[in-house]
Protein backbone atom coordinates (compact mmCIF):
# COMPACT_ATOMS: atom_id res chain seq x y z
CA UNK A 1 0.00 0.00 0.00
CA UNK A 2 1.18 3.49 -0.85
CA UNK A 3 2.29 5.40 2.26
CA UNK A 4 0.53 8.54 1.06
CA UNK A 5 -2.75 6.67 0.68
CA UNK A 6 -2.33 5.10 4.11
CA UNK A 7 -1.74 8.48 5.74
CA UNK A 8 -4.71 9.94 3.84
CA UNK A 9 -6.94 7.14 5.06
CA UNK A 10 -5.70 7.49 8.61
CA UNK A 11 -6.34 11.22 8.63
CA UNK A 12 -9.81 10.83 7.15
CA UNK A 13 -10.72 8.22 9.76
CA UNK A 14 -9.27 10.37 12.55
CA UNK A 15 -11.40 13.35 11.63
CA UNK A 16 -14.49 11.30 10.70
CA UNK A 17 -14.62 9.90 14.22
CA UNK A 18 -14.49 13.36 15.70
CA UNK A 19 -16.64 15.50 13.46
CA UNK A 20 -19.88 16.06 15.40
CA UNK A 21 -23.00 14.66 13.79
CA UNK A 22 -25.31 16.40 13.72
CA UNK A 23 -24.21 19.94 14.38
CA UNK A 24 -26.53 21.57 16.87
CA UNK A 25 -27.45 25.16 16.17
CA UNK A 26 -27.16 27.47 19.18
CA UNK A 27 -30.55 28.90 18.19
CA UNK A 28 -32.67 25.82 18.59
CA UNK A 29 -36.34 25.89 17.67
CA UNK A 30 -38.31 27.20 20.64
CA UNK A 31 -40.76 24.70 22.04
CA UNK A 32 -44.08 26.48 21.96
CA UNK A 33 -47.01 25.88 24.30
CA UNK A 34 -49.97 24.55 22.32
CA UNK A 35 -52.35 27.18 21.01
CA UNK A 36 -56.02 27.25 22.11
CA UNK A 37 -57.08 26.01 18.69
CA UNK A 38 -54.79 22.96 18.71
CA UNK A 39 -55.81 22.23 22.31
CA UNK A 40 -59.52 22.36 21.31
CA UNK A 41 -58.85 20.12 18.29
CA UNK A 42 -57.06 17.56 20.49
CA UNK A 43 -59.95 17.57 23.00
CA UNK A 44 -62.46 17.03 20.18
CA UNK A 45 -60.49 14.08 18.80
CA UNK A 46 -60.24 12.45 22.23
CA UNK A 47 -63.97 12.99 22.90
CA UNK A 48 -65.04 11.50 19.55
CA UNK A 49 -62.72 8.50 20.06
CA UNK A 50 -64.15 7.90 23.56
CA UNK A 51 -67.74 8.21 22.30
CA UNK A 52 -67.08 5.77 19.45
CA UNK A 53 -65.46 3.25 21.79
CA UNK A 54 -68.42 3.45 24.19
CA UNK A 55 -71.22 3.16 21.62
CA UNK A 56 -69.99 0.82 18.90
CA UNK A 57 -71.75 -2.59 18.79
CA UNK A 58 -69.84 -5.42 20.33
CA UNK A 59 -69.12 -8.09 17.73
CA UNK A 60 -70.24 -11.57 18.71
CA UNK A 61 -69.45 -14.42 16.33
CA UNK A 62 -72.66 -16.05 15.16
CA UNK A 63 -71.44 -19.58 15.87
CA UNK A 64 -71.41 -18.73 19.55
CA UNK A 65 -74.84 -17.14 19.58
CA UNK A 66 -77.32 -19.10 21.67
CA UNK A 67 -80.28 -17.81 19.66
CA UNK A 68 -79.07 -18.83 16.23
CA UNK A 69 -79.00 -22.53 17.05
CA UNK A 70 -76.04 -23.02 14.79
CA UNK A 71 -73.38 -23.42 17.45
CA UNK A 72 -71.18 -26.43 16.97
CA UNK A 73 -71.07 -28.39 20.19
CA UNK A 74 -68.21 -30.81 20.54
CA UNK A 75 -69.36 -34.41 21.13
CA UNK A 76 -67.81 -35.80 24.29
CA UNK A 77 -65.63 -38.86 23.81
CA UNK A 78 -67.23 -42.03 25.05
CA UNK A 79 -65.64 -45.34 25.66
Amino acid at each position, binding site marked *: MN*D*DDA*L*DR*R*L*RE*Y*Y*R*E*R*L*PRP*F*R*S*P*LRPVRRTPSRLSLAASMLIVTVAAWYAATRPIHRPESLSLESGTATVPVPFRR
Partner: protein
Amino acid sequence: MADRRAEFDRLFLAHAREAWAVAYARRPDADAAHDIAQEAFLRLWMAWQDGETIRQPRAWLLRVARNLAEDDAKSAFRRNGTRPPDQLAGLADRPVADAVVHAERDAALHSALQQLSAEDRELLALRYALDYDTPNIAALLDTTPAAVLMRLSRARQRLATILGTEP
Protein backbone atom coordinates in the same frame (compact mmCIF):
# COMPACT_ATOMS: atom_id res chain seq x y z
CA MET B 1 -36.35 39.31 12.18
CA ALA B 2 -37.53 36.22 10.30
CA ASP B 3 -35.13 37.14 7.48
CA ARG B 4 -32.26 37.35 9.95
CA ARG B 5 -33.18 33.98 11.40
CA ALA B 6 -33.32 32.43 7.92
CA GLU B 7 -29.94 33.98 7.07
CA PHE B 8 -28.52 32.67 10.34
CA ASP B 9 -29.78 29.14 9.64
CA ARG B 10 -28.34 29.30 6.13
CA LEU B 11 -24.94 30.39 7.45
CA PHE B 12 -25.02 27.73 10.12
CA LEU B 13 -25.76 24.96 7.62
CA ALA B 14 -23.05 26.21 5.26
CA HIS B 15 -20.25 27.02 7.69
CA ALA B 16 -20.72 25.26 11.04
CA ARG B 17 -18.34 22.47 10.03
CA GLU B 18 -15.71 24.99 8.93
CA ALA B 19 -15.98 26.74 12.29
CA TRP B 20 -15.53 23.35 13.97
CA ALA B 21 -12.46 22.56 11.83
CA VAL B 22 -10.67 25.83 12.60
CA ALA B 23 -11.56 25.47 16.29
CA TYR B 24 -10.41 21.84 16.42
CA ALA B 25 -7.06 22.85 14.89
CA ARG B 26 -6.45 24.96 18.01
CA ARG B 27 -8.45 23.11 20.67
CA PRO B 28 -8.06 19.40 19.88
CA ASP B 29 -11.14 18.19 21.69
CA ALA B 30 -14.12 17.40 19.44
CA ASP B 31 -16.80 18.41 21.94
CA ALA B 32 -15.00 21.58 23.00
CA ALA B 33 -14.54 22.54 19.34
CA HIS B 34 -18.26 21.95 18.78
CA ASP B 35 -19.10 24.25 21.71
CA ILE B 36 -16.71 26.87 20.33
CA ALA B 37 -18.32 26.69 16.87
CA GLN B 38 -21.72 27.16 18.47
CA GLU B 39 -20.42 30.06 20.53
CA ALA B 40 -19.06 31.78 17.41
CA PHE B 41 -22.48 31.55 15.77
CA LEU B 42 -24.18 32.76 18.92
CA ARG B 43 -21.89 35.80 18.94
CA LEU B 44 -22.83 36.50 15.35
CA TRP B 45 -26.49 36.42 16.35
CA MET B 46 -25.85 38.71 19.31
CA ALA B 47 -23.86 41.11 17.13
CA TRP B 48 -26.80 41.27 14.73
CA GLN B 49 -29.16 41.87 17.64
CA ASP B 50 -26.95 44.79 18.69
CA GLY B 51 -27.33 46.23 15.21
CA GLU B 52 -23.75 45.54 14.06
CA THR B 53 -23.19 45.28 10.34
CA ILE B 54 -21.00 42.32 9.47
CA ARG B 55 -19.95 42.49 5.85
CA GLN B 56 -18.33 39.07 5.57
CA PRO B 57 -20.09 36.78 8.03
CA ARG B 58 -18.11 33.68 7.00
CA ALA B 59 -14.72 35.32 7.58
CA TRP B 60 -16.03 36.93 10.77
CA LEU B 61 -17.28 33.60 12.12
CA LEU B 62 -14.04 31.78 11.40
CA ARG B 63 -11.97 34.55 12.98
CA VAL B 64 -14.13 34.43 16.12
CA ALA B 65 -13.92 30.61 16.21
CA ARG B 66 -10.11 30.77 15.92
CA ASN B 67 -9.82 33.35 18.72
CA LEU B 68 -12.23 31.51 21.00
CA ALA B 69 -10.39 28.22 20.42
CA GLU B 70 -7.02 29.78 21.21
CA ASP B 71 -8.38 31.29 24.42
CA ASP B 72 -10.04 28.02 25.36
CA ALA B 73 -6.87 26.02 24.66
CA LYS B 74 -4.91 28.31 26.98
CA SER B 75 -7.47 28.05 29.78
CA ALA B 76 -7.73 24.26 29.28
CA PHE B 77 -3.95 24.06 29.60
CA ARG B 78 -4.12 26.09 32.82
CA ARG B 79 -6.90 23.85 34.15
CA ASN B 80 -5.53 20.45 33.14
CA GLY B 81 -1.83 21.03 32.67
CA THR B 82 -2.10 19.30 29.33
CA ARG B 83 -4.56 18.89 26.50
CA PRO B 84 -6.34 15.61 27.03
CA PRO B 85 -6.10 13.39 23.96
CA ASP B 86 -9.37 12.85 22.24
CA GLN B 87 -8.88 9.10 21.87
CA LEU B 88 -12.12 7.60 23.01
CA ALA B 89 -14.12 8.78 20.03
CA GLY B 90 -15.65 5.93 18.03
CA LEU B 91 -14.17 3.13 20.16
CA ALA B 92 -17.52 1.77 21.28
CA ASP B 93 -18.27 0.63 17.73
CA ARG B 94 -15.30 -1.77 17.58
CA PRO B 95 -14.42 -5.19 18.99
CA VAL B 96 -12.18 -4.89 22.06
CA ALA B 97 -8.87 -6.12 20.57
CA ASP B 98 -9.38 -4.01 17.48
CA ALA B 99 -10.28 -1.04 19.66
CA VAL B 100 -7.00 -1.28 21.58
CA VAL B 101 -4.90 -1.29 18.40
CA HIS B 102 -7.02 1.51 16.97
CA ALA B 103 -6.70 3.58 20.16
CA GLU B 104 -2.90 3.29 20.06
CA ARG B 105 -2.71 4.34 16.41
CA ASP B 106 -5.24 7.08 17.02
CA ALA B 107 -3.33 8.40 20.02
CA ALA B 108 -0.10 8.40 18.00
CA LEU B 109 -1.72 10.39 15.21
CA HIS B 110 -3.38 12.74 17.70
CA SER B 111 -0.08 13.35 19.42
CA ALA B 112 1.73 13.84 16.09
CA LEU B 113 -0.87 16.34 14.95
CA GLN B 114 -0.34 18.38 18.12
CA GLN B 115 3.31 18.81 17.12
CA LEU B 116 2.30 20.62 13.95
CA SER B 117 1.42 24.31 13.87
CA ALA B 118 -2.21 25.38 14.22
CA GLU B 119 -2.09 26.55 10.59
CA ASP B 120 -1.00 23.08 9.43
CA ARG B 121 -3.71 21.42 11.51
CA GLU B 122 -6.31 23.79 10.13
CA LEU B 123 -5.29 22.93 6.59
CA LEU B 124 -5.41 19.19 7.30
CA ALA B 125 -8.81 19.50 9.00
CA LEU B 126 -10.26 21.37 6.03
CA ARG B 127 -8.91 18.75 3.64
CA TYR B 128 -9.55 15.56 5.61
CA ALA B 129 -12.45 16.42 7.92
CA LEU B 130 -14.48 18.48 5.47
CA ASP B 131 -13.10 16.96 2.26
CA TYR B 132 -12.59 20.43 0.75
CA ASP B 133 -10.82 20.66 -2.57
CA THR B 134 -7.83 22.94 -3.11
CA PRO B 135 -9.67 25.95 -4.66
CA ASN B 136 -12.22 25.87 -1.85
CA ILE B 137 -9.51 25.86 0.83
CA ALA B 138 -7.67 28.64 -1.01
CA ALA B 139 -10.82 30.78 -1.07
CA LEU B 140 -11.45 30.15 2.61
CA LEU B 141 -7.90 31.00 3.66
CA ASP B 142 -7.61 33.88 1.19
CA THR B 143 -4.62 32.43 -0.62
CA THR B 144 -3.84 30.75 -3.94
CA PRO B 145 -4.47 27.09 -4.82
CA ALA B 146 -0.75 26.64 -5.52
CA ALA B 147 0.11 27.90 -2.03
CA VAL B 148 -2.47 25.54 -0.51
CA LEU B 149 -1.02 22.56 -2.36
CA MET B 150 2.50 23.41 -1.23
CA ARG B 151 1.48 23.97 2.39
CA LEU B 152 -0.58 20.76 2.42
CA SER B 153 2.29 18.77 1.03
CA ARG B 154 4.68 20.15 3.63
CA ALA B 155 2.21 19.59 6.47
CA ARG B 156 1.78 15.96 5.40
CA GLN B 157 5.53 15.50 5.14
CA ARG B 158 6.05 16.89 8.63
CA LEU B 159 3.29 14.65 9.96
CA ALA B 160 4.72 11.57 8.26
CA THR B 161 8.17 12.36 9.66
CA ILE B 162 6.82 12.71 13.20
CA LEU B 163 4.82 9.47 12.87
CA GLY B 164 7.82 7.69 11.38
CA THR B 165 10.14 8.65 14.21
CA GLU B 166 7.72 7.61 16.96
CA PRO B 167 8.42 4.33 18.69
